[in-house]
């Protein structure tokens, strides 16, 4: 079972990489960009047949390692 996870910086945490990417996009004439926030995507193959169990395991991985909850949020976006 593959579980997909997105980790993003919390709203009030500064994202200098996102700001720099936005400036580059504007320099390329994408003038209607308001904000860019950069995150991380994980795809984890878990030895498990039940979706809920696999996602629960992935959530535990996020809490313990994949995300730093002081500055980041995580979202399990699906499993298949």
């Amino acid at each position, binding site marked *: 079972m593959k579980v997909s996870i997105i980790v993003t910086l919390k709203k009030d945490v*500064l994202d200098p990489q996102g700001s720099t990417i936005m400036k580059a996009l504007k320099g390329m004439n994408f003038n209607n960009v308001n904000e860019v926030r950069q995150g991380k995507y994980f795809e984890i193959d878990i030895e498990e047949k039940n979706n809920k169990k696999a996602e629960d395991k992935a959530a535990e991985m996020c809490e313990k390692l994949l995300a*730093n909850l*002081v*500055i980041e949020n995580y979202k399990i976006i699906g499993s298949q």
Partner: protein
Amino acid sequence: MNSSVIIFPGSNCDRDMAVALKKFGFKNKMVWHEDSDLPKSDLVVLPGGFSYGDYLRCGSMASKSKIINSVINYAKSGGLLMGVCNGFQILTETKLLPGALLRNKLSEFICKNVFVKVNNIENNYFNKIKKKILELHIAHNEGNYFCSDNQMKEINDNNQIALFYCNENGESKDDSNPNGSKKNIAGIFNKEKNILGMMPHPERMIDKYLSGDDGSIFFENLLNNLK
């Protein structure tokens, strides 16, 4: 006094730290990250560098390494534990210190001398220190100290701020904040003040002819406090 410096793959200030500790009289041992036991130590140091290539988040992989359980047990039983630069990042990732270190505000690696002001001397690290404004070196990409408002309240209530970035007169202003750290924070303690994390490198300032001497003041003072 016995000290231990932990080496992770990618640490690169471990030997500088060992040189500094020995210079001021510590009997130092280097400890590999895959060891499970710490030698008997009066001080344990997590050095600067790029442990595990800064993969995932700076310090995150080191915070799960084999040696770290012994380090956590040592610190929780009151042992002195100091993390410099990447070591500070590891201490926040282990949750031994509150907050996190974000990418520098201006998205650039900063490598320069800065001034820091000692904020709290009621601890083994800074008690009786003869200078309160120290010139130290910083070299980091992720030194922008961040914590939640609740954590900041707790940090203030428990007098946990160790060092502020400041100018040479000791004034902490926006233009003396090199990386965007909240409240100009350059270093913090845990509540009990036996754990210190700081971005500046005292081990790089131990020779007045090569760099500067303010790191020497720090190490000499620390050793005297432990005697």
